[in-house]
């Protein structure tokens, strides 16, 4: 705005002393060249500052002068100042009214301490999650004894939100998975002339493993994150505290409606994903193996045993339970700062997807051992 002359220095090296003549505007936007000059300056043992040429100064100018002066003194120089104006000394006295004590940066603790702390924190986290589950179940039994407390309306709303509204994205994901599996199998099976086995391939892999998994991952990403963010936001605005003081238990009002809604809707979503996924496979089978829809369905009736379909469906409530509980638990962990809501939402989705995959692996081992 004002056309000030940038700060400048004239350094006069006299036999016994260094004279530093300062002039121009020593304000933040005009300081750059001077800082550089002062950093490289190696003065005599006696330094004389002449400040009379300075037209204006702000705190960065004062700080630069003070910093350089201190450096010279540490190098054993004697420093003196002439020509300072009232404005300079005013500002100097304001900024350096009391000596500012050095505050050392806090040391980062040793790796052993950090390892211990993190381990302790993880164990504590598991403990907290278990006590969260425990409290939830106590309240579940309590509500079962008093069925009027069950929030049917809320469960319904969550079924619409997490179920019906999720249909388009689940349809697209399942269809594409069907297409991908069919493509990969067609190429391999054609080598053996065993094109017809594409039906077994698609039917069993989709209903038993892929459709439940894809559905769970989509739901974890879509509804799990939403649960954490909703509850986290309520925690930040103290709505949860308000509910507690009014006697509305957050488990009855917030946790169980979400968990139950997801557990009810998940098997249905998996069934839907089965249908769309198999349709995706059928489309590829027809275009690449000339296997008509009727032939495909006829073959499917023989190839797909009921147990595969049922195993896939039964996984649904388990996955839903894990996703809903982890995400609501993470929601309650959100603290009063804005950053934590993002952090816990991320954690919630990562945890939920991991638990779903771990649970799926457990199912696989268990069912194989049971020879199903």
């Amino acid at each position, binding site marked *: *705005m004002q056309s000030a002359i940038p700060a400048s220095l004239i350094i006069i090296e006299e036999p016994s002393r260094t004279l530093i003549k300062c002039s121009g505007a020593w*304000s*933040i*936007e005009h*300081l*750059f060249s001077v*800082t550089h000059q002062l*950093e490289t300056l190696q003065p005599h043992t006696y330094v004389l500052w002449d400040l009379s040429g300075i037209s204006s100064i*702000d*705190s*960065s100018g004062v*700080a*630069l002068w*003070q*910093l350089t002066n201190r450096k010279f003194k540490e190098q054993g120089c004697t420093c003196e100042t002439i020509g300072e104006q009232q404005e300079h000394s*005013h*500002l100097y006295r*304001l*900024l*350096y009214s*009391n000596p*500012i*004590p*050095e*505050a050392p*940066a*806090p040391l980062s603790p040793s790796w052993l301490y950090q390892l211990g702390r993190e381990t302790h924190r993880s164990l504590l986290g598991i403990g907290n999650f278990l006590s969260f589950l425990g409290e939830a179940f106590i309240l579940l039994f309590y509500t079962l004894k008093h069925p009027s407390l069950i929030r049917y309306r809320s469960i319904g709303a969550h079924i619409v939100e997490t179920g019906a509204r999720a249909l388009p994205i689940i349809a697209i994901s399942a269809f594409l998975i069907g297409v991908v599996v069919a493509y990969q199998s067609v190429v391999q099976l054609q080598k053996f002339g065993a094109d017809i086995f594409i039906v077994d391939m698609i039917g069993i892999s989709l209903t038993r493993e892929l459709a439940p998994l894809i559905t769970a991952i989509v739901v974890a990403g879509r509804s799990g994150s939403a649960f954490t963010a909703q509850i986290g936001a309520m925690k930040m605005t103290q709505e949860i505290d308000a509910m507690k003081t009014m006697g509305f238990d957050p488990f009855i009002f917030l946790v169980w409606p979400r968990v139950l809604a997801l557990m009810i809707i998940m098997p249905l979503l998996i069934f839907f994903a089965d249908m769309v996924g198999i349709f995706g496979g059928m489309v590829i089978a027809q275009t690449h193996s000339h296997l008509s829809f009727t032939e495909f369905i006829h073959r499917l009736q023989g190839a797909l045993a009921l147990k595969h379909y049922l195993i896939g469906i039964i996984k649904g409530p388990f996955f839903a339970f894990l996703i809903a509980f982890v995400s609501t638990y993470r929601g309650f962990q959100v*603290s*009063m*700062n*804005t*950053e934590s809501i993002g952090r816990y939402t991320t954690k919630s989705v990562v945890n939920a997807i991991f638990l779903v995959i771990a649970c799926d692996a457990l199912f696989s081992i268990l069912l194989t051992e049971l020879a199903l």
Partner: protein
Amino acid sequence: MNHTIIDVRNVVTAFGENLIHDHISCTVRENEIYALLGGSGSGKSTLMREMILLERPQSGTIHVLGHDLSTLTPLEAAGLRRSWGVLFQSGALYSSLTVGENIALLYNEYTDLSPKLVDELIRLKINLVGLPPHAKYLYPSQLSGGMIKRAALARALALDPKLLFLDEPTSGLDPLSSRQFDTLIQQLRDLLGLTIIMVTHDLDTIHHIVDRFTLLGEKKAIAEGSLEEVLAIEHPIVDYFFQKGSYGITC
């Protein structure tokens, strides 16, 4: 030295159907502590947000430091934004950065100062607002309400602005901290030659440090002037706001 720093003329603001300001005018002069006063929902915060380019009025003009805000080029706007500091009601410190980093951000983005000098300046600003030196390493979530306000003030002062906007600087502070904060603001005005515009409804602040203010109410600017001048005006909102006749301030 009675330069006009901010000149608001006939500002009309409406959010949808909801009229907030109906032809409001006020003037802020150089080196004064100026307050925007009014009850909740009187549009005082909105008026300040219009001054700092966060909102736009429907009609009317606002001049800040001689620039008409409605005809600013992006470059002028950037320059103007660097010449003021803003303290938001809740501090608005970046929660992922420490207090020191919050202040350093401005130096690193806008200046070419050496890291050493930046470090010295951060120490100065932290000291200036009355925070202990180790506050530099703390995250906003580790600070109390009063400390957050001070840290946010340090950040607002980073680039040595000539103009300081404070949104309810003393709200949420205990009475003692509020008075200390008032004193701090007054000192900064006197020593750094700042012009300060604040939104407040703290009557003590108005009594002790504010030079002139505008009282907003019923979508209008009801009164402008010093406390004595405004108290002399007969208006139900003035009476209500300063509780004239019952208890409260008399002059």
